[in-house]
């Protein structure tokens, strides 16, 4: 009987997630507001059901009451957070909120599966982050001059990035010197600098289209990328680079910049391949993980074992061996999910991320203020490109770069910065909606008055 429940739940979870991700695209085609709201409510229900079934499976497998407690606390958390956010962020995108909860819940489940202690820490971080971010719409609304602080962002960002080189503060981890240790808490500054970097680029580029200025700004951006390269944080460097190119392209409408960027990227890659041993190791591991399985290829090979053995339907929560993949809870969580929850689930997860990205871009398109528009573009690209890097690396589509899956992977800095990223986009959306409503009202008033005259 117990086994029937376990086996049936496995397939039900896949079904729930399929329907959930389908809704994520159907809503774009729906015009009627009531239907949209109905779909959003369905999505929430599906999310709660999936979350419940997953924890049920975890409990049945580990027979540890802690999972039930964690589950209950998380349900309360989701309930409270959605209620409060709807109050604080008026007219926010409910789709983005749903996706945020969905991705967080998948992360909670998978991290709890891999290591319960980490799951509890992750949950505390998320709860703290979500609470802090309640002030974001307030800040955006009150400080209208956020777009004027270009130099402020630039200096703050570089300074923060450089903290890792301060003796006694910076720490090396997995061969990259991109961590700092403050009061016993490890932080990855680049995760937060990502956002400052976007603000910096958007702030400057929303004001100028002059070639001379663009060269200056690009040099400043290159400083960021080079610092990250010096930290051996190649994934981070790539993300910054692609985000900057995207903002530059949208701001100027010049494809030539993209071409120049890729030209620079190609030559930089060649240089990196020649001069950095760890770059070569990664590329070798990508080309042929099997012959280097005892060394560089170990991670990717185990990731592929996990994905392949899991198949389309997965081994079932708790039934796989995700711990055999190094850092399965963060950089390789996609493989762990694919192994235990199945390939279909994993693809649906990617679809949810893409749906989220499309909604972000929709918000960017609706923005009337250039600074906000470019910020939204930069943040959207950072989000989607990071997913591309981590998933592509895990399935050997591209060399692995060691970045996290936003909101899903374990890691305080990663999840906090992603929550901030989501909040800023939502906050700008809220402000934009508000301005537009006011505009509409004024316009309507004017039209009314004109009508009266005629």
């Amino acid at each position, binding site marked *: 009987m117990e*086994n*029937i429940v376990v*086996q*049936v739940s496995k397939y039900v979870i896949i079904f729930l997630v399929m329907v959930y991700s389908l809704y994520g695209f159907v809503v774009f085609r729906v015009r009627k507001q009531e239907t949209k709201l109905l779909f959003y409510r369905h999505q929430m229900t599906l999310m709660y059901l999936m979350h419940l079934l997953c924890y049920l499976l975890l409990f049945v497998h580990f027979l540890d009451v802690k999972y039930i407690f964690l589950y209950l606390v998380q349900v309360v958390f989701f309930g409270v957070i959605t209620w409060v956010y709807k109050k604080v962020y008026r007219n926010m995108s409910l789709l983005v909120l749903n996706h945020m909860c969905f991705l967080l819940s998948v992360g909670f489940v998978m991290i709890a599966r891999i290591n319960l202690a980490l799951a509890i820490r992750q949950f505390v971080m998320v709860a703290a982050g979500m609470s802090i971010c309640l002030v974001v719409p307030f800040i955006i609304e009150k400080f209208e001059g956020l777009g004027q602080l270009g130099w402020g962002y630039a200096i703050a960002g570089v300074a923060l990035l450089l903290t890792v080189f301060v003796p006694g503060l910076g720490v090396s981890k997995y061969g990259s010197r991109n961590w700092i240790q403050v009061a016993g808490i490890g932080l990855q500054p680049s995760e937060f600098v990502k956002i400052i970097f976007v603000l910096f680029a958007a702030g400057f580029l*929303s004001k100028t289209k002059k070639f001379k200025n663009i060269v200056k700004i690009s040099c400043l951006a290159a400083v960021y990328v080079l610092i990250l390269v010096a930290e051996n944080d190649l994934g981070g460097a790539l993300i910054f680079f692609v985000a900057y190119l*995207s903002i530059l*392209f*949208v*701001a100027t*409408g010049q494809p030539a910049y993209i071409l120049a960027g890729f030209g620079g990227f190609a030559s930089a890659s060649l240089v990196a391949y020649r001069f950095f041993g760890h770059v070569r190791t990664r590329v070798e591991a990508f080309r042929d993980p*099997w012959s280097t*399985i005892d060394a560089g290829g170990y991670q990717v*090979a*185990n990731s*592929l*074992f*996990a*994905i*392949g*053995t899991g*198949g*389309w339907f997965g*081994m079932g929560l708790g*039934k*796989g*061996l995700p711990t*055999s993949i190094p850092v399965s809870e963060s950089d390789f969580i996609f493989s762990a999910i694919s192994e235990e929850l199945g*390939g279909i689930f*994993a*693809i649906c997860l*990617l679809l949810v991320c*893409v749906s989220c*990205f*499309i909604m972000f*871009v929709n918000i*960017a*398109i609706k*923005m*009337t*203020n*250039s600074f906000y*528009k*470019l910020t939204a*573009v930069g943040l959207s*690209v950072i989000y*989607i*490109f990071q997913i*591309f890097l981590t*998933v*592509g690396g895990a*399935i*050997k*589509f591209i060399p692995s770069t060691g970045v996290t899956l936003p909101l899903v992977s374990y890691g305080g800095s990663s999840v906090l910065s992603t929550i901030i990223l989501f909040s800023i986009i939502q906050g700008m959306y809220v402000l934009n909606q508000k301005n537009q409503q006011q*505009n*509409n009202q004024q*316009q309507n008033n004017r039209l009314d008055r004109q009508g009266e005259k005629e």
Partner: protein
Amino acid sequence: MKMNKKKTLQKSVVSNGGIYAITYFFVLLFVVMVGYYVHFMVFESKDVINNSYNKRQDLLAESVVRGKIYGAGKEVLAETKTRGDGTEYRYYPYGAVFCHVVGRSEHGKTGIELSENFNLLTCSNKSIGTLWNELNNKKNPGDSVVTTLDVDLQKAAYEALGNRKGAVVALEPSTGKVLAMVSKKDYDPNEVSENWESLTEDADKESRLMNRATQFTYPPGSTFKLLTALEYVRENKKYEDFTFDCDGQEIFSGVKINCYHGSEHGKVDLKKALAKSCNGAFAKIGTELNFKKFRKLCNSFGFNTELPTDLVHTNSTFALKASSKKEEMPQTAIGQGDTLITPLHNAMIAATIANKGVMMEPYVVDHLETEEEEIVSQKEPVEAGRILKEKEAKQLTDWMKNVVDKGTASALSDFDYSVAGKTGSAEFDSKKSSHAWFIGFAPADHPKIAIAVIVEGAGSGSEYAVPVAKKLFKNYLGN
């Protein structure tokens, strides 16, 4: 109208065109990535997970009964049985006969048990029945491996080698199917646990656990003269004019070369030199060959590189290179010197000549099937490449027929069909003791089987390897 007005009111200086472009780009990127993921799941994952580094086999064994391994005629070679107390064990009905090629699943998997491990532990039959088993926590039957191995031929080879150390490999030239693969000394995989200590201790230096057919390398001896002759043909248009006067012993480049047991072959041309296996003639040829070209030819046959096969094997080596000293050549040309070859590789060379110059990749797993005999995946023969021109293959075949008709393998001349072959006696120490080799194929005109036989430390190929070959041909093709 209202929409238009609203737009003109917006004062954005940044157009949305770039945003659309970026969106399409990333969505496309994800479509391609998901496509790659699906491709991996459908086409690659099976091969990938079937890797000894994948630690998930024990997990699979909890829900799947390891599949059977069959001979080509569906004879059971390995199956999982259950003891009275419910524990499982692996049973090998033929005992030691298939111990190396099929392998064992305990004490470190080997052979097919290793290479097909994950496939044996995968149940590809997705039916209501298996789903029901899954729901009720009952084990499903794993997929079975149907091999290319001919059980009768394998038994014949196993018996023909008798108590001697050695190996036999039989291939189907047109496909690369491994028809038989025997290595002696052997062990009974049913009793591997009981005998594990003595097997690993290997006090008598018998290496029972090793598959000599694929893992041991031997000097090829006179079987190598085929390649020397081929190189001579390639370098000399008038190769048929070659003659040599053999008086049993001569010095080439300062190296003394004897013919086997000092026989004097008199005046020989290339054909006769091969038939009589005249060392003097080939040492002479060796002094005339271009080192660099000779090495290139041997490399094209698979020396100094991985052989084109999934079977686990040791690489054969051909040490001579452009910078080698002249003194190395006479020995190398007659298959002594530093050249080393596996029996599998020597069989592949015979099969390539038999297949008119095209080498086929040897394989031992024909297909995977479910318990309901539905085919899960079917192996298709793969060409490793054309190594010889058809004309060259025909010339070598004619000479090899002559070896059987008038030369050192004449014991094979009384079949109804003609046999092509080459014997060899590979000296492996200073005491002049030698391994007996035979490689060849039959029927010579339409080859159905190519073989390599080696009997360690026995003596001459004609005396010890040819009789083994004879039993194989008789078993497979009749009288």
